[in-house]
């Protein structure tokens, strides 16, 4: 029996660089059910985008998937397989973190959206254009007819991001992977986009993997949260548990660092130090050098273990790590 849409087991991704092998993903496992919204949060450089790229079959030289597997509705999903073509891009779509590098600068916005619709839904050119106009107004872009004839560089950052979202939902996928979909949007437009996603979840049972740095969005939209650090998932749990009682010291630090609108402190709280290099990551807990609760015992490998209703990779799971910190 398998009720998951997508399952990732022990995924490892390496990048071969001149300086050595970057171990970007070091055994990542996660799963998502139909209609579920999973947030992936974590440190810059922790592997969130690489995880998404791996699912989409987009890891390219110098990168390679060096271990683990990805299952779509129980079947292995490899980009090379014929069936995968149909799944990736239609049933699973992705909104990329950087719209400027993922939109074609030489094609008008209209041509790019229509292309997706023609390819995957077999619409005529004219019908595809009509659908493109609908999609642009769905994501709150004004003057959609005029926008179809514009090139990406003629749009503001936030408009480009919304064009990406329109393309992502064009074929009513089963799973949408959205990598920082609203960072370039003002909060009122952001709220509209999030409402649109929530609506699609209701109407077509869309499952969403949302990669974001904005914990406010996670709090409002997501069911479950996976927290990444240095190429590994260090904690997963329900959105309520993660915010109310984060158990990994890094998760606790992250939540502590979130600035609040109604509080003005002299200095923003951060987690001092930097994550380890992934060329030669430590075999023990990767957070140890920055962890206020760490000690000699954390030197051994930490794997994700059930803790409360979620799972945590920390031998001191649940300790109040930042109690003494200022």
């Amino acid at each position, binding site marked *: 029996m398998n009720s998951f849409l997508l399952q990732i087991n022990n995924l490892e991704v390496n990048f071969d*660089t001149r*300086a050595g092998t970057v171990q970007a993903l070091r055994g990542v496992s996660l799963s998502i059910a139909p209609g579920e919204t999973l947030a992936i*949060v*974590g*440190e*810059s*450089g922790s592997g969130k985008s690489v995880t998404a790229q791996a699912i989409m079959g987009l890891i390219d030289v110098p990168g390679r998937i060096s271990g683990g597997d990805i299952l779509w509705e129980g079947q292995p999903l490899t980009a090379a397989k014929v069936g995968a073509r149909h799944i990736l891009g239609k049933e699973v779509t992705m909104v990329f*973190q*950087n719209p400027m590098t993922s939109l074609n600068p030489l094609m*008008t916005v209209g041509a790019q959206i229509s292309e997706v619709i023609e390819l995957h839904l077999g619409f005529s050119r004219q019908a595809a254009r009509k659908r493109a106009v609908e999609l642009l*107004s769905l994501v*709150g*872009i*004004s*003057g959609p007819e*005029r926008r179809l*004839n*514009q*090139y990406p560089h*003629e*749009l*503001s*950052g*936030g*408009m480009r991001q919304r064009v990406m979202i329109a393309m992502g939902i064009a074929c009513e996928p089963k799973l949408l992977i959205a990598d920082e979909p609203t*960072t*370039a*949007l*003002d*909060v*009122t*437009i*952001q*709220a*509209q986009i999030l409402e649109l996603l929530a609506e699609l979840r209701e109407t077509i049972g869309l499952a969403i993997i949302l990669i974001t*740095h*904005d*914990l*406010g969005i*996670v*709090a*409002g939209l997501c069911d479950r949260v996976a927290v990444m650090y240095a190429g590994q998932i260090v904690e997963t749990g329900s*959105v*309520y548990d993660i*915010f109310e009682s984060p158990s990994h010291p890094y998760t606790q*630090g*992250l*939540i502590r660092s*979130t*600035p*609040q*609108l109604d509080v*003005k402190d002299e*200095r*923003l709280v*951060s*987690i*001092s130090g930097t*994550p380890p*290099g992934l060329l030669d990551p430590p075999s023990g807990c990767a957070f140890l050098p920055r962890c206020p609760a760490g000690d000699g015992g954390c030197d051994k490998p930490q794997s994700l273990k059930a803790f409360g209703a979620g799972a945590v990779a920390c031998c001191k799971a649940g300790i109040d790590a930042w109690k003494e910190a200022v």
Partner: protein
Amino acid sequence: MMQAPILSVSGLAIDYELSSGGLFRKRRTLNAVNDVSFDLFPGETLGLVGESGSGKTTVGRAVLRRLGVAQGKIIFDGKDITHLRGEELRRLRSRMQIVLQDPYTSLNPRMKVRDIVAEPLRVHGLAEGSEMVVAELLERVGLSRDAADRYPHSFSGGQRQRIGIARALALKPSLIVADEPVSALDVSVRAQVVNLLQDLQRDFGLSYLFIAHDLAVVRHISHRVAIMYAGRIVEIAPSEEIYNRPIHPYTESLLSAVPVANPKIQRARQRIIAPGESVDIADPPKGCRFHPRCALATQRCREEEPPLLHKTPDHSAACWNRPA
């Protein structure tokens, strides 16, 4: 503040040429920004926030003289720079720098960090002794000296943003336009970079034009905040004023739409989300540009555009129905 402003923008208007499809390929221009005025004082941070597509990046680029100015004036350090050209413009550029949002594409992947940071020095003929300067800059932004010999891809987002800041500091500018400098960073790294920007401001007396969507960060770093909507500044005031006593209905809806990092509170919240789509600035509504989304709109709002007026000595807003 009684000193003279380092930057003074008045009545700024910027137009873009549009590529037009369709049968009649007539040239059209788009008026992206109109009648934008503000001062920025030495050592001050002006936050620039607002609707996506409202013209924030356009204003930032115009100030740096990377765009032609259709109307208005830009005074930098007492000098009218609106139409500077050639050598003079090149010299001016060394005093104003930009930090961009994307730490991934804004650094040349084929250059070592040493050369990226030293590039502005070389361009301005200051390559002599740059080795030392680069080492100091890297240290100042919290990177180790050996970072100089590595390529950008081996750094995380936050570290790349620090490299971008080090490069921006190389020529000891007086003004930095930071266009969404922390949007791509996780909250902890974001805090580190914001703290760094504040330290640098204190140490070097830098002025920042700080463009961002994260209202909590803007509140934290800005002395004053300007809110833009559809090519206009609709409200400008000291940061605490804007956050505690917003005047313009758009500012109110912005503040109320900021999501709270608490699932129970966030899901229960009533937000004043301004409904409707963003303005098409190629075909803006008559009167107040916010009126189609505004709960307070009256007949006058649909006919006449409200001017930006002082509601209190240091708090200006453009709204007919909000006297003060």
